[in-house]
C-alpha cells in the first residue's frame, strides 16, 4: 500500500519540532478528520532557511509533511509556493488513491505559513 519512501519518511521524519519566534506559522486540517498539520518557517531575505513541522495524522500525512519540509528548505518563498501536492506525492513515489488528500494538507500548510509570514511583514 505505501511505497518504501513513504514508510522511510514516516519512520524517520525530517524536521519535526517547533521553531521559537518563527517568521511564519500555520496550522491546517481538522482533528475530527484525523489530521492536523502545523508548519513553522524561519525566513531570511525571502529564503526559507529553516522549517519545522508537527503533524497528527496517518502515515501519509506524516510522510508528506516530512518530505515537503525537505523540499522547501533553502528555497525562496516564490519557489516554495510553486510546490504542489502532486510534486510532493511524486517525491514519495506515489500514494494510495485514498490518501491523496493527505498530500493536499502539506501544500496547504506551506501556503498558509508563508501567508502568515507575508501578513506579519505587512503589519510590521
Amino acid at each position, binding site marked *: 500500500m505505501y511505497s518504501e519512501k513513504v514508510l522511510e519518511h514516516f519512520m524517520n521524519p525530517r524536521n519535526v519540532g517547533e521553531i521559537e519566534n518563527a517568521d511564519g506559522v500555520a496550522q491546517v486540517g481538522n*482533528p475530527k478528520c*484525523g489530521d*492536523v*498539520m502545523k508548519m513553522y518557517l524561519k525566513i531570511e531575505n525571502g529564503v526559507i532557511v529553516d522549517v519545522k513541522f*508537527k503533524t*497528527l495524522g*496517518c502515515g501519509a500525512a506524516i510522510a508528506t509533511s516530512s518530505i515537503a519540509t525537505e523540499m522547501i528548505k533553502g528555497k525562496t518563498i516564490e519557489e516554495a509556493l510553486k510546490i504542489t501536492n502532486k510534486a510532493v506525492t511524486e517525491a514519495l513515489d506515489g500514494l494510495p*488513491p*485514498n490518501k491523496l488528500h493527505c498530500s493536499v494538507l502539506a501544500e496547504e500548510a506551506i501556503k498558509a505559513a508563508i501567508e502568515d509570514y507575508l501578513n506579519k511583514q505587512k503589519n510590521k
Partner: protein
Amino acid sequence: MKEKIIYFDHAATTPIKKEVLEEMIPYLTEQYGNPSTIYKLGREAKKAIELARERVAKALNADIEEIYFTSGGTESDNWALKGTALANRDKGRHIITTTIEHHAVLNPLKYLEKIGFEVTYVPVEPNGIVDPNKIKEAIREDTILISVMLANNEIGTIQPIKEIAKIAKEREIIIHTDAVQAVGQIPINVKDLGIDLLSLSAHKFYGPKGVGALYIRKGTRIHPFLQGGAQERNKRAGTENVAGIVGLGKAIEIANKNLNEYASKLQKLRDKLIDGVLSKIDYVRLNGDRYQRLPNNANFSFEFVEGESLLLLLDTKGIAASSGSACTSGSLEPSHVLLAIGLEPEVAHGSLRITLGEDNTEEDIDYLLEVLPEIVSKLREMSPLYESVKKEGNKDV
C-alpha cells in the same frame, strides 16, 4: 525490528489450526468429488459435508437440518436479512437493529431501506451494550425482523440476546443474531438463546476463510439467496466448498471443546493488558464495558494520536493490531461503533484494538506494554495538539 510477528488481530482473522488443515487436505487432493454426484468419490465428499454439519449443529445445540453452509459471515448476514425481509414483507416492512452492527448487517439493511423497508437503529449505552427495553420500545405493529449482534467486533461487548429474543418472540418477530465474533469465545446455545437465525464465519475461530454458516430455525420463513442447483436442500445453491466446510466443522468442534480453558487464559492476558495500558499511559480510555466483553478483546483510545500511524509503528516492532481510525481505510468517518458509544471523532481516531488468540503469551503482553508507551509518546511529540496540552498540564479523558 523483531523478526517474529506478535499477532494481536484475531478479530480480523485467525490462522488455520493444524488439526483443521489436516482434515481439509484430503478434500484439496484425492477426495475431489462433487458432492452432488452418485459415485463413490462424490458420496465421500457428501459424507464429509454432513459430518461437518453435524459438528456445527452440536456446537450450537441446533438440529442438523437447521445448518446451512455459506461463503462466510457476510453472506450469512445478507441471506438472513434480505431472505427474511423479502419472505415476510406481506406481514410488514419494519426492521429493528442497533447502531453498532457490522457493515455486513448495516449495508444489507440500507439496501432494504432503498427498496421500501424501514429500519430503526436503536442506540447503545455508553458502555457499548444495547438496552433490551429500547428494542422493545422500537417495536411497531409492522415489525417483522430484529437483528442484534451477539458480540461486537470492535469493542467486544456482549449483547443481551436472550432477553431481546424473548421480547421478539412475544410479538412473533423473527430474530437474527450475528455471532461471527462470538463463536469460539463464549458458549452459544441457539435453543437457550431462543433465536431464529445465527451467522458465523470459520476464519474467526481458526478455520479457513471464505466459508461460514447460517443457522435457520425450522419453520422460519426465508427465501433462498443463492439460487441454482439443489445443494443444501434447495436453500443455498452452488458446488460446495468441501474442504472449507470440512475445515469449518473441525474448527468449531475444537473451539467448542476448548472453550472454557481458552476463554479463561485469554481473559487473564486481556486483564493484564488493560490494567497495564491504563496505568502506564495518560489520556487513554478503554472502550466498551469493562466486564461484559469478549475474553480476547481490548479497545483503547489515545488522545493526540492517530490510529494508522500507531499501527504502522507497531508493525515495525513486529506487532499486528487494528484501529477504528478512518485513516486506516482512507474513508472520511471513523468507526461508527466508537461514535455510537459517544466518542468524539478526534478521540475515535486514536483507537487501538488488541484481540488476543491462543498463540499469545504473557511475554507478548509484556512486550506490547514495553513498546506501546514509547510509540504513543513519539507520536504525541509530533502532534501539534499535544503541545498545548502539555503546557497546560495533565488531564484525564
